[in-house]
């Protein structure tokens, strides 16, 4: 079997790539996708530890994280669509006023 530290290392690499995506990309949709990548990296660590300790609690937590990610994607994409309709842009540098 593969040691659990390999899985944690892979999860860390994916998390760092997601964080870099959030910091580097300017498109709001791509920033959202990077956040999803970070959530997936955390999920992978959860499942690896659930497997290592032989308990199901980690997998249940992944279930909840997937649910929250679905809710977050729905609301976030609706926000992006609403902002695009008022600003005609997805660039996070241009969204610098709270007033719509």
């Amino acid at each position: 079997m593969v040691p659990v530290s390999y899985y944690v290392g892979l999860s860390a690499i994916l998390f760092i790539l997601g964080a870099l995506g959030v910091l580097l990309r300017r498109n709001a949709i791509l920033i959202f996708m990077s956040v999803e990548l970070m959530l997936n990296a955390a999920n992978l660590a959860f499942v690896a530890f659930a497997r290592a300790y032989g308990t199901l609690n980690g997998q249940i937590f992944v279930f909840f994280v997937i649910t929250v990610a679905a809710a977050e994607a729905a609301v976030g994409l609706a926000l992006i669509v609403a902002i695009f309709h008022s600003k005609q842009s997805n660039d996070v540098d241009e969204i610098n006023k709270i007033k719509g």
Partner: protein
Amino acid sequence: MTADLLLFLVLAVVAVASAVAMLVSRNAVYAAIFLILNFSTIAIFYLLLAAPFIAMAQITVYAGAIMVLFLFVIMLLGGQTHHTRSFIPWQAPLAILLGVALAVEVIYVLITGSSGLPALTGTQATSVAPGFGGPQAIGEVLFNQYLLPFEVTSILLLVAMIGAIVLTQKEKEREREQIRQTMDQTIPEIHAPVETPEPEVPEKV
């Protein structure tokens, strides 16, 4: 090198490569498709880690529902990202520096602290009960131990659904309000009693 380790390494290379490709691709549609590939490889990792239910949920919810939603929005708003100059010129080098710092931190923690982690050895692979991570086992834990969080999740989904509908409905509501105002302005003019001037009767002399 065992077959397990070989499979892990190949899948890890695919996962990291697809994540990097998502990061650097200019077209948002390509980025979404690379992210779907990444989610699929992570689902295979879940299968390797004795979590078949989570793997199927990953495929259906993440690679299916969420990414289709993303693709819908990308198609709706246009996928091409036009390059404008960033308002903060030092942001990209600082971001890469911070990412490298985070990577160094994680590697340090993994090297120094991984002795405390339980190793997945051959004996532990067989020690997991049959059906571990399947729908029945997950359901038993979910509906006994985690019933309240499960119900709270349903409220969260309801709120998210209402929020999404309200956010995208706003424009139509504004248009309807405008139509109502113009109706209010025009209708009284139509229905107001028209004062017809009395026909001038020539005075009889």
